[in-house]
């Protein structure tokens, strides 16, 4: 099939039919921020950080497939400010104490806050009371930091295909729980993947924290998305 021609902020781009805007943008060296999306997982478009504007309508760039000739707005000031406000909402909705978090420096939410220069949120802090579940032998779940992106729910499965994590309850009471029986038999690789798939510090591999010194962590020196913009992204 022929390539799809489209534009992002006036830049002529080529994509493959069926590709989402996020994937095609990446292939063209344009970074669109994502949080609930993870390459290889079926996108759900729940966090809306990737919101772009096409023909005056807002859409999630991680779920919207390319359409021939579409003109995507990605860096309009009002869009960027909307994304910034979404990041701020995620910060005030949970209890994100970066100084005491093992994921600090490798956290995608924090990295987005750095990229968007979130110095203080415009919304009041909600300070919800959330639980910590450290019952699994290899993993610790900290609900304070969870942003309900469902990446773990989609990505982590046992050998027989059963889901290791699940969302319990609905709306603002939703929380991620781990299947205790499955969690008891997780391999080292599965536990590591569960921690890596979590964009924040809600799922942690026990006993390995703070292994990388400050200054050498993922987002210490360069903003999230720099690899895409340099054309070196995965």
């Amino acid at each position, binding site marked *: 099939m022929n390539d799809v021609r489209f534009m992002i902020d006036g830049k002529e781009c080529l994509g493959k039919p069926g590709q989402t805007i996020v994937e095609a943008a990446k292939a063209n060296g344009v970074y669109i921020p994502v949080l609930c999306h993870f390459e290889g997982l079926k996108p759900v478009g729940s966090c809306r950080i990737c919101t772009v504007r096409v023909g005056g309508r807002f859409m999630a760039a991680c779920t919207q497939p390319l359409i021939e000739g579409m003109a995507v707005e990605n860096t309009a000031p009002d869009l960027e400010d909307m994304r910034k406000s979404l990041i701020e909402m995620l*910060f005030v909705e949970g*209890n*994100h*104490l*970066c*100084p*005491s*978090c093992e994921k*600090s*420096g490798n956290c995608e939410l*924090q990295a987005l*806050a*750095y990229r968007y*220069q979130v*110095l*203080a*949120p415009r919304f*009041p*802090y909600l*300070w*919800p*009371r*959330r639980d910590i579940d450290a019952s699994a032998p290899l993993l610790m779940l900290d609900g304070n930091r969870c942003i309900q992106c469902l990446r773990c729910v989609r990505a982590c499965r046992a050998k027989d295909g059963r889901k290791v994590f699940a969302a319990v309850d609905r709306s603002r009471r939703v929380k991620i729980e781990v299947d205790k029986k499955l969690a008891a038999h997780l391999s080292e690789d599965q536990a590591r993947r569960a921690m890596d798939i979590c964009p924040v510090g809600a799922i942690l591999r026990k006993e390995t924290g703070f292994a990388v010194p*400050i200054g050498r962590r993922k987002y*210490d*020196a*360069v*903003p999230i998305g720099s690899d895409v913009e340099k054309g070196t992204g995965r």
Partner: protein
Amino acid sequence: MSKPVIATASLAGCFGCHMSLLDIDERILGLIDLVEFNKSPIDDIKTFTKPVDVGLIEGGCCNSENVEVLRSFRKNCKVLVSVGECAIMGGLPAMRNGIPIRECLEEAYLNSPSVDPEDRTIPNDEDLPIILDKVYPCHEVVKIDHFLPGCPPSADLIWEAVTALVEGRPLQLTYDLIKFD
């Protein structure tokens, strides 16, 4: 012309941000040439004696005294800056925010191990500041003009911000200066 005046305070903080201010190394000599300190733990001046150009606030508000000090800073400072995570979002002290205040006090004073188990009371002297229901970030109590994140903010960030504010130029907050830890 008189030098720009700076005041600082540590509310519900650990003085780490003040330590980071002192961590500007030999630039501290330049700072003394550049500014004059008024109310601050650094020179031990207890009350405002003149109008202040830049107020630096470390720590959030966990009791009535913090609120009083913060309000007096707002009143006396032209520009007020939240310095560090505690001032910006409550920080470590805010870990109590999900826990009812009664539960906190009972855990600290009645139920925890003690060298004198017979004498357990929750302090309630009229001279003590009243503890707030939550630890509040400074910008939820008064208007804050600038925010310097970090735990602590790096000496370079504090230096950049203080020199920019007293010289009246915009803050250059480069990527390496903005960190939350």
